């Protein structure tokens, strides 16, 4: 696979580290159901067939965490943005 890094251009996937679902948000630790919410956050993952938003880290490049839109069936890559643009948890 080749991933277009907004900073470094189109680069081979071997330069990146993969983390997974980019749509997760770290729950509020003060909420009454925080333990259940954190358990969901830490362990539960959907396994979507199709379009997915994923976190990739450009480890061998600029060190940016990226949100990569990828189709898990075809590996087609869509929009790639910096994770920090999501505004955090």
């Amino acid at each position, binding site marked *: 696979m080749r991933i277009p890094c907004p900073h470094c251009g189109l680069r081979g996937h071997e330069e990146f580290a993969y983390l997974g679902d980019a749509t997760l948000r770290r729950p509020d630790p003060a909420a009454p159901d925080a333990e259940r919410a954190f358990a969901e956050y*830490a362990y539960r993952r959907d396994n979507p067939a199709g379009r997915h938003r994923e976190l990739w880290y450009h480890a061998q490049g600029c060190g940016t965490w990226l949100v990569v839109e990828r189709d898990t069936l075809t590996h087609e890559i869509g929009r790639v943005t910096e994770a920090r643009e999501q505004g955090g948890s």
Partner: protein
Amino acid sequence: MSGGASTQPRRLASGGAIDRSQPLEFRFDGRTYTGYAGDTLASALVANGVRLLGRSFKYHRPRGLLCAGPEEPNALVELRDGARREPNTRATVVELFGGLEAASQNRWPSLAFDVLAVNRWLGPVFAAGFYYKTFMWPAAFWERLYEPLIRRAAGLGRIATGPDPDGYEKSYAFCDLLVIGAGPAGLAAALTAGRAGLRVLLIDEDFLPGGRLNAERQLLDGRPAREWAAAAVAELGSLPSVRLMRRTTVVGCYDHGVYGALERVHDHRPAPPPFEPRQRLWRIACRHCVLASGAYERPLLFGDNDLPGVMLAGAVRTYANRFAALAGRRAVVFADNDEGAVTAADLVAAGADVVALVDPRTAPGATGVERIAGVVRRAIGGQGLRGVEILAADGSVRRIACDLLAMSGGWSPALQLTAHHGGRPRWDDRLGTFLPGTLPAGMMVAGAANGDFTTEAALAAGVRAALAAAAALGHAAAPVALPSVSPESVGHRPLWEVAGTRGKCFVDFQHDVAVTDIELAEREGYRAAEHMKRYTTLGMATDQGKTASLNGLAVLAARTGRSIAATGTTTFRPPVVPVAIGALAGTHRGRDFRPLRLTAAHAWAVEQGAIFMETGPWLRAQYFPRPGEPTWLESVTREVNATRQAVGVCDVSTLGKIDLQGPDACEFLERLYVNGWRTLAVGRARYGLMLREDGMVMDDGTVSRLGEHRYLITTTTANAVAVFQHMQWCHQVLWPGLDVQFVSVSDQWAQYSVAGPRARELLRAVVAAEHDLSNEAFPYMAAGTLRLRDDTVARLFRISFSGEHAYEIAVPARAGERVVRMLMAAGAPLGVTPYGLEALGAMRIEKGHVAGNELSGQTTAHDLGFGKMLSTKKDYIGAVLARRAALTDPDRPRLVGLAPVGRGDRFGAGAHLVRRGVEPVAAADEGYVTSAAFSPTLGHWIGLGLLRRGPERHGERVVAFDPLRGRRTELEVRDPVFVDPAGERLRV
């Protein structure tokens, strides 16, 4: 054949793309022959009249050449000798060189007389599914009898057993247009794109680009096709943006225009020149690709169609036209398509007697050749073809003597690369073959690979594809003027099978799969293409059934009453041709398997006689043996005692170091670590513990506050990269609003531990006089920047892993070696001793400090005795889940110290802890020893372990059960801090 160089009796007097001025001697099965530069091993053997090249996989049937290209199933040879011996090399792609040594495979004791040919009469035993059925019982027989027998009887050559003496490398290429195959379609595409200025990479398997243009007697613009190809290659060589790679096979199509290719850089020489690789694995990233990989001709299915002398018609033409080598003197041609006539004409032109052209269709024949409407139903011969039995359309049967049968069942596109992304080939009823289906993005297919079976159509398709690629890339391109092609005729009506055959009728020659095997599979219920393939192993040999697949599907379709289209193909996976493991490994072999990292003071440690060990990528001093120390234990004991009694120096440069700055740096630390940082003053250091979000311990280290908004973080050596990446994730993904910056400075600073009661005295001697190192001015856990006496800038941390009065001194890496020598020189009067990882480990176990063995990713802060560190006043990574009841359960295995009851007993890490008097079974397991060392301070072995409810069990005796080392040791459970529990030594 007699001994000595032969006279190439089957070499034509003229013609061919061979260099007759360059004769080459080579040996096959111990005999010496001569060929010419430009030959393959196969063509040279044809020229020398050698027909018998090997024995088949299961039945040891005699086999000769079937093909002239990479799809060859039969002519597998062992090439070269000794450590360079390579089995299963296709003679058809081995470029001849002087001194080449090759041997046939699967024969014993000799090729002509093969004892195991008796397998032919055991046919029923080796039928489809024989692995699954025949040798199931009794089990003991399998190991002793059947398996060795089958290994000997049914094998594919012998591998070399010595280390591979050759080198391999990996390389990367980038282009606008990748053209795979330099036949008519590929050359036309490359010319069109190259003239338009696209960056073109043209890749061809052969050493002579041109594909079938080199093999046919066609005329292009009135000139031999080979001359047009040579002119095209010459022009491509003159275009600056075009690169032609010969002897290179594209083996896989990956995502986003990435292709893998294997370049046989020096396989056409006896051995690679010094410092040159034998093969090179390419990763090619292209924006568009034109696949012009051509097609494979199909054999016809009739009795004993595997006899040496039965060859594909296209191969016969290749040998005659390209290599000027005649595969037989008296030939019968059997085809279900118009190329039968072409083959007959070419053979006549080459001087052979063509005694019959057999074709089930009513089609025109060739001048001067008897045309028989009918089929060959059987080949006749022992070790080679002597004749054929023909069943004519009128029902009459004739036997005709011949030494060559050129057969053709039409062509199947070489479409493997189109299917590597899961695209299914689609059936084309008009052409009677599968064509590429859904293509990988960016790929176009041109020429015979797409069913354009005439040269004229292939040339035009190549131009069209290149124009489309140029347009997509925004380049203006003009179609190249194409040559006129002499008349071609490709009429075809697939025969698939000859009815009423006699003898064994092979479909997959390399795996010895016959029509009867497919029939058996169908009868036993393996009716799906994938099931039939696995049950019969059709298409599963090293050739992946290039000549066999479609014929097998056709037979299965006929037996199941389905169409071939409905039967479907099996799945194509990379690599298209076998790739040596050495090529995949590249330079990553032996010592170069992964990079090796050396610390700044490595040369000093070598001088000190260090024994090194690998910790991750690092090479670190394990211990420093001195004369008179018979084992490591004496060295380590001396190093520990010297450190505890005087002073020791240890290289700790491999620790991860992260420089953190910014107004929100303290808040960032608050969120990363379990403990608090707001009270950490400038010039002070503190121990920190980091969790993962699931509540397990991730890493530990120290954080030193160097300035108002500046901190230096250390991590364990093993987690240096992971912690930095984690911090990047926390900052960028979770809290981008925090105003912090951080960078890894692990490589920028060399760091040395100076430990022991005389550590301050030593430092006093190297640190500039203006700095006050007194306990009041620079107490335990102080941190600061200072100058050494030689003006080197240094950072000093009064921290201790050993439990001694200790410091870590950090200096710029370039000064590391100088400073360690300075420390040793200054410490000489104090009795300074270098110590290694073993002594470091022994001392930290004596102090009950956890390290990698305890930070296993499965331990919690509570498990390790850090429960009180968990702040309740703030949120941090892992805070919520660390509070889960199961993670704070006192019943979990928790950290304890362990000492043998019999003080002379030894025990080791990994031993399981069970109660005394209990059978040591898994159900009784209460934990395990995480670390163990001989304690020079206490004079016996000690250890750390994780024991269920451990902290409540101090004083209890348990058993360390170590089946791996055959030990059972009684241990006393105790507090993990063995030495100086009050920590008094740290603070003096």
